[in-house]
Structures are given as structure tokens and as C-alpha cells.
């Protein structure tokens, strides 16, 4: 088979698996697991084959016309574009999706809705692969929107709980809020460039001969940026991602860490020449990334739910990628995307094991349990690897990719970069925010590790907890390998990407590593201080769950009980929390995402509700009163007339006779009158 045929099969297989799973899930639940796992595994194998065959050489293209648009020169084409970025990101998506599918067979083993869940995960994977391979903006948009709706279904998997229902609606609406300008941006871009093909647009823009320029590059870039901010959870549209942690943990790993949120970054990387055409757009992107890096890291330091810590760290790491794109280095961005996809999926999946082992998702409760490392040793070791990668300490993978981003920013800041439309200002913004982010990232990674694994308290007995299925632990180690070693690929990747060196530069790497170490040590010091302080106080009650149930049940119960137990979904009043000491007065605001949700409520939700109430009042009280009045008159008349229906035949006949007499007299009078005149 040719490479393009293989590439076409990659998104198609999970799609067919999803369709088959949805159709047969109710009748033949035994087929749900193979139907979920096998197509995903197979498409991963095919994605690897495509990557090997493509080998980072010239982009392969294939296209067939899908639908006319009314403009003969602007058709929608089912087009594939296989370059180094696409094939590598597809491999990442396939690997993470396979891991998640395998993990889900253990995680949701007793779940009655497993079949539909697995089908949606497959459909989601297919959509992401379509986005990765697509060369046509409309086809890409189709995958983009399918991911949005699958995310809605999967976040709302535990729809029995209020938190999950609210979170799924919020995720859907917030991403759609970005998608509307995104769609407009796509249409404007296509009509100005004269094609929907991404490769066509970029080659037109980058070619020296064509002298082609967009008429409104800033408008287009900002419109597209809105959609990217929604999908990739960047400020100010990031608020849906922390709440989306109400979904099952594998969903968080797949959708909200490694793939869907990466789609936004990947989209900018593909269309970077469009963004580079507008210096304003790049500065806006840099500012957005900077605000997101710092804000999300501060918030992550204050979260009590282990998954919300990881969610905020996802937002922050995506902002690093956005920062790399703001300095016009897509090689660094996609490098960080690949590495982050691996270690964040690992962190989420390990967190799922940990939540099951501890029976709670609260760090405050875990800090009061001893022996968690003993009952979940695989999660302990792999999570340690993942957290060091997140904190970007050498020689773990996160170090290399983050240094690539910072080195790119440094080059731009000091003016020795060659991109079009890149200003040193954007470089400085990204560099400063990236350094600050490195400090905070190391701090919250250390806090998470210390609270979760260095807790002191009653031992969690191993018998009480059902042992995790082997498949869940195996998946963790599979993902630990790239988290450890993928960073060393920095020497190979420039051959796949069309970029310069991705190696760390000496100044930034020493600086950033030093800062990260400072962050770790600060957190350790604060932790020593707070735990000795709080040891004398009474311990907090841990959130209890059914320890014998399957992991999904434990998690759903943990989510549902967090708010009743601690009075808040995000924070816990825990005096032993080092984050509380480090953040000081900022803690309350950071725990709630700097009250952005409250601001949105005041700015958008309340006015909308007030307008709805006004419309209801006008409809009920003003419009309806006319309608009711129109009905009331005839009803009164009808009631009067009905009174005469006595049922007595002779009354009717009498009325008939009197009526005929009156008519006859009238006719006679009229006849006499006319004849007399």
C-alpha cells in the first residue's frame, strides 16, 4: 500500500471502531473492549509506518475533491498533507490513545456505560488524527468540531453528578465561543488566499516569487487565535479545562492533556506564516502565553484536587508552546507538544491510579495518609519521572523541550533570529514569563509530589484496596519511557521539522534549571515548615470512597464528596499545605483561578439571565395578555349562547316560530315600504 493510503486508514480505523462500538455496544457488550482497543492499536502501528516511510523528507500530498462551494476555484478537498510535524504528532496521538484505551479497560471495568465511552474515545481519536493529517481547512474544522462534541460527552461521563454536568456544558460552550470567530477567520483566510488548502496558503505566503500578501493579516490571525485559545485553553478562554477534570481520568489524559488541547497549538504551527504575517498577532499571542504561564502556575500551586493541579499545569505547558509559536519557532513548539503529550498523559494516568489507591482526589487528604507509595509503587515511580519532566530538570525529556522554547525566545529577544514579523518584544515577554513559569512549575510539581507521596498518618492498608489491574500499571511504564528519553531526540528532530537546532542554549538552560531547583527547594522548605507546624493540630478527615469498587467509581465518589467535605471544589482549608505559605495572600484568589469565573458570571451570565427574564416577562405579561384577551371575548359570548341549549324541543320550536314571524313581518313591511315609495 502506498503511504497515503496508509495515512488515510489511520483516522478511518478508529472511526469505524467507534461506529461499530456505538452500534453493537448495547447488544453485544463483550465486543466493546476489542472494538475499542484493536482499531486504535492498529492505527497507531499504521501511523508509525507512515512516519517511518515519510521519514521527515518532502511533504507527501494527496487530495480528492469533496464538495463544491459555489466558487469553482475554491472547492473543499479531502486533502492529506504528511510532513514531519503531521506524522510525528499522529504517532503521539496514536500512542497516547492506545495507552488510554488499554488503561480504560481496567479503569472502567465495571462501568455500565463502558461501550459508549470507548466508542467516543475512538471517535475522538479519529477526529484528532483527521485534524493532524488534514490539509484542507474545512476538513480540519470537521475534526475540530467532532473533538468538541466528543469532549462534551466524555467530560459528562459521570452525568449523575452535578459537577460533571456543569463541566461538560461549560467545556462545550467555552470552546464554541472560540470556534465562532475561528470559523469566520477560516472563511476570511480562504477567500483572501483563494484556497482552503493549508499547504497552498503557506507556500503562497512564504514563496519569494509570488509576492502574495494577505489584505487583513491581523484580523485573520486574531480571529483564528480566538478559536485556538478556546481549544488550547489559553487565557482568557481557559476556564473550562480545570472544571473538565470532572470527567474520568483517562479522558483527562487523552483529551485535556495530550491531544485535543494540543490541536490548537498544532493548528498555529501549521499556519504559522499566516500568524507571522502580522507582528501584532504574534505579540498578542506572546502576551496571552505569558499571562497564561504565570497565572496557571500560580493557580496550580493552590489547587487541592490532584487532577486540577495537573489541569492547570497543562494550561501552563500549552502556553509554553504558544510562546514558542509567538517567537515563530514551530519546531520548538511541536517538540514540546510531543514531550508534554507523553509526560502529561503519564501524569494523569498515574494520578488515576493514585486516586483509586487513596480513595480520594484531595491532596490534603493524601498528605495525611502513609504508605501510599507501598500500595501504588508503579504510580509512585512513574509519577516521579513525570513530575521531574514537568519541572524540566535535566536529563528528563521536559528539560530539553522547554529549553528549546526558551532558547528560541532568547534568540529572538537578543535579535539574532531570522523569522518574519518577529519582534524582540515578543521574545522578551516569552523569556521572562518562561523563567517565572519554570520557578512556579517546579514549585507546584514538588508540592504535588511531597503532599501525595510523603504524607504522614495512618497507613493505608493494602488489603482494603483492590489491586490495580496489571494493564494500568504496564501503560504507565510504557509512557514513562518517552518521558525519560524523548528529550534526547532534540538532535534528530530538526531533520523532521524545517527548523534550526533544538538544542538547549547554555545561558538559558543553566538559568532555568537553577530557577527550577530554587523552586523545588523553596517548596521543600515550606513543606518542612508547614508539616511541623500542622502536626500538632488535629488531622483532617479524609474523603472516603468505596475502596473495593473499580477506579472509575472511586473517582466519581471522590469528585462528588470533595465539595461537601471541604466546602469548595478546588481548595481545602489545609494549614499543612506549602502552597498556602508560598502564595500568602494570593492563595484564595489562585485557588479559584483568580476569580475569572466570578468575573465571567458578573459580565456575561448575569446580563444574559436578566435579558432572558425580561424576554420572559414581555412574553408572559404583555404579548400573552393580548392573546388571552382575544380569546376571552368569544368565550364569554359562547357561554351566553350555550345557556339557551336547554334540551327542550318545544322551546326551540317556539323560537323558530317567533323568528319566522318576525322575518315575515319584516319582509312585508319592507315590501310595503318600497311599493309605497
Amino acid at each position, binding site marked *: 500500500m502506498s503511504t497515503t493510503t496508509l495515512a488515510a486508514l489511520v483516522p478511518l480505523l478508529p472511526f469505524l471502531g467507534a461506529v461499530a462500538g456505538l452500534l453493537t455496544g448495547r447488544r453485544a457488550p463483550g465486543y466493546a473492549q476489542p472494538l475499542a482497543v484493536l482499531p486504535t492499536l492498529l492505527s497507531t502501528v499504521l501511523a508509525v509506518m507512515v512516519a517511518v516511510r515519510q521519514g521527515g523528507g518532502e511533504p507527501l500530498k494527496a487530495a480528492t475533491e469533496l464538495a463544491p462551494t459555489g466558487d469553482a476555484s475554491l472547492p473543499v478537498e479531502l486533502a492529506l498533507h504528511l510532513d514531519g510535524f503531521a506524522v510525528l504528532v499522529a504517532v503521539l496521538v496514536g500512542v497516547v490513545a492506545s495507552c488510554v484505551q488499554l488503561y480504560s479497560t481496567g479503569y472502567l471495568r465495571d462501568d455500565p456505560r463502558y461501550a459508549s465511552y470507548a466508542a467516543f474515545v475512538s471517535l475522538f481519536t479519529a477526529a484528532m488524527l483527521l485534524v493532524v493529517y488534514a490539509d484542507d481547512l474545512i476538513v480540519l474544522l470537521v475534526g475540530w468540531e467532532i473533538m468538541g462534541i466528543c469532549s462534551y460527552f466524555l467530560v459528562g461521563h459521570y452525568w449523575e453528578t452535578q459537577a460533571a454536568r456543569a463541566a461538560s456544558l461549560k467545556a462545550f460552550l467555552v470552546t464554541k465561543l472560540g470556534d465562532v470567530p475561528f470559523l469566520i477567520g477560516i472563511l476570511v483566510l480562504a477567500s483572501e488566499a483563494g484556497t482552503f488548502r493549508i499547504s497552498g496558503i503557506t507556500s503562497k505566503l512564504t514563496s519569494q516569487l509570488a509576492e502574495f500578501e494577505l489584505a487583513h493579516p491581523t484580523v485573520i490571525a486574531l480571529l483564528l487565535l480566538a478559536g485556538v485559545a478556546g481549544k488550547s485553553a489559553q487565557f482568557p478562554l481557559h476556564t473550562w479545562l480545570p472544571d473538565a477534570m470532572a470527567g474520568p481520568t483517562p479522558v483527562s489524559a487523552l483529551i485535556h492533556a495530550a491531544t485535543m488541547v494540543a490541536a490548537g497549538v498544532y493548528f498555529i504551527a501549521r499556519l504559522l506564516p499566516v500568524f507571522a504575517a502580522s507582528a501584532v498577532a504574534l505579540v498578542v499571542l506572546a502576551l496571552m502565553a505569558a499571562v497564561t504561564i504565570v497565572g496557571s502556575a500560580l493557580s496550580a500551586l493552590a489547587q487541592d484536587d490532584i487532577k486540577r493541579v495537573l489541569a492547570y499545569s497543562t494550561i501552563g505547558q500549552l502556553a509554553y508552546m504558544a510562546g514558542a509559536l509567538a517567537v515563530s519557532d514551530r519546531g520548538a513548539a511541536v517538540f514540546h507538544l510531543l514531550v508534554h503529550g507523553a509526560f502529561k498523559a503519564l501524569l494523569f494516568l498515574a494520578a488515576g491510579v493514585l486516586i483509586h489507591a487513596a480513595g480520594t482526589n484531595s491532596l490534603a487528604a493524601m498528605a495525611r495518609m502513609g504508605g501510599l507509595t507501598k500500595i501504588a509503587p508503579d504510580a509512585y515511580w512513574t509519577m516521579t519521572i513525570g513530575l521531574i519532566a514537568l519541572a524540566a530538570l535535566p536529563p528528563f525529556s521536559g528539560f530539553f523541550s522547554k529549553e528549546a522554547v526558551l532558547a528560541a525566545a532568547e534568540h529572538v529577544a537578543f535579535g539574532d533570529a531570522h523569522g518574519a514579523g518577529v519582534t524582540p518584544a515578543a521574545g522578551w515577554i516569552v523569556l521572562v514569563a518562561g523563567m517565572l513559569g519554570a520557578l512556579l512549575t517546579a514549585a507546584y510539581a514538588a508540592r504535588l509530589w511531597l503532599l501525595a507521596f510523603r504524607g504522614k498518618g495512618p497507613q493505608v492498608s493494602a488489603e482494603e484496596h483492590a489491586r490495580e489491574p496489571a494493564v494500568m500499571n504496564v501503560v504507565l511504564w510504557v509512557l514513562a519511557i518517552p518521558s525519560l528519553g524523548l528529550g534526547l531526540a532534540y538532535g534528530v528532530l530538526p531533520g523532521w521539522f524545517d527548523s534550526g537546532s533544538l538544542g538547549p542554549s547554555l545561558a538559558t538552560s543553566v538559568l532555568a534549571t537553577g530557577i527550577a531547583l530554587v523552586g523545588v527547594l523553596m517548596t521543600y522548605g515550606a513543606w518542612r515548615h508547614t508539616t511541623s507546624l500542622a502536626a500538632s493540630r488535629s488531622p483532617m478527615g479524609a474523603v472516603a470512597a468505596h475502596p473495593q469498587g473499580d477506579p472509575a467509581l472511586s473517582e466519581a465518589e471522590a469528585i462528588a464528596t470533595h465539595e461537601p467535605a471541604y466546602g469548595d471544589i478546588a481548595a481545602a482549608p489545609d494549614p499543612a499545605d506549602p502552597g498556602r505559605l508560598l502564595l500568602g495572600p494570593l492563595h484564595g484568589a489562585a485557588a479559584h483561578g483568580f476569580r475569572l469565573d466570578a468575573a465571567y458570571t458578573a459580565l456575561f451570565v448575569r446580563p444574559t439571565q436578566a435579558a432572558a427574564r425580561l424576554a420572559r416577562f414581555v412574553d408572559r405579561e404583555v404579548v400573552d395578555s393580548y392573546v388571552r384577551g382575544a380569546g376571552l371575548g368569544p368565550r364569554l359570548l359562547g357561554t351566553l349562547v350555550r345557556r339557551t341549549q336547554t*334540551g327542550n324541543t318545544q322551546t326551540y320550536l317556539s323560537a323558530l316560530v317567533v323568528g319566522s314571524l318576525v322575518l315575515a313581518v319584516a319582509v312585508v313591511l319592507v315590501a310595503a315600504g318600497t311599493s309605497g315609495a
Partner: protein
Amino acid sequence: MHLAYPAVLAALLFSIGLYGVLARRNAILMLMSVELMLNAVNLNLVAFDVWLREELHTGQALALFTIAIAAAEIGIGLAIVLLVYRNRGSSDIDRLRDLRERSAAEADEASDDGTGDTASVKATNDSGRQTS
């Protein structure tokens, strides 16, 4: 013979018939009064036919039609009255008031009875199906 005699007689007959239809309570007597009115008309038809010396005698012909229709009408009418009497044990026209407009309270009662009836019918059907 002067036209006034049959005309006055017909008017008297018609008035008596009208009074009977509007005032008698017995349905059979009402029907008889209708016959009186019809025959008053017949009398008029014949009288005017003779007085006008019509060639084709349309008045007399129409009278024959009226007689035939009256016979049919009285047949149907008496049959209805007989059936009503068998069902109700009375042919008093004042009591045959089922088609009157009911007040709200009465209408509720009636509808309750109706659903009760259908429910019992359904129950018997079900039991019948089970036994069969």
C-alpha cells in the same frame, strides 16, 4: 263556494296544530298536531287550486305529495317515539332533555362516569383475553 271558508278553516287548523306542537307534552300528540298543520296546508292547496282554475292542477298534485311525505314522516316519528318509550318508559317531551348544555359541575360528573365506564370495559376485555 267562497274562498274565505276553506281559508279560514285552514288557518284555524294550522293554529290548533301550532298550539299542539308548542304546548302538548306527549310526543304522540305533538306528532298529531304536526299532521293537523300539514293538512291545513293541503286544504289551502286544494282550495286555491280550485279558485284559480289551474289547468295542470299543480295544487292538487302537490297536496298528494304532501300526503305521501306526511305518511312517511308519521311512520318514522311514531317508530322513534315507540323506541324512546321502550327505553325510558315515558314519552313525555319535557323529560327528554339529554342534549341540553350542561353546567360545569354536571359536565364533570358525566366525564367521570365516562372514564369509569371505559375503564370497566377495558378490565372486562383484559380478563376476557386472559381466560381465552
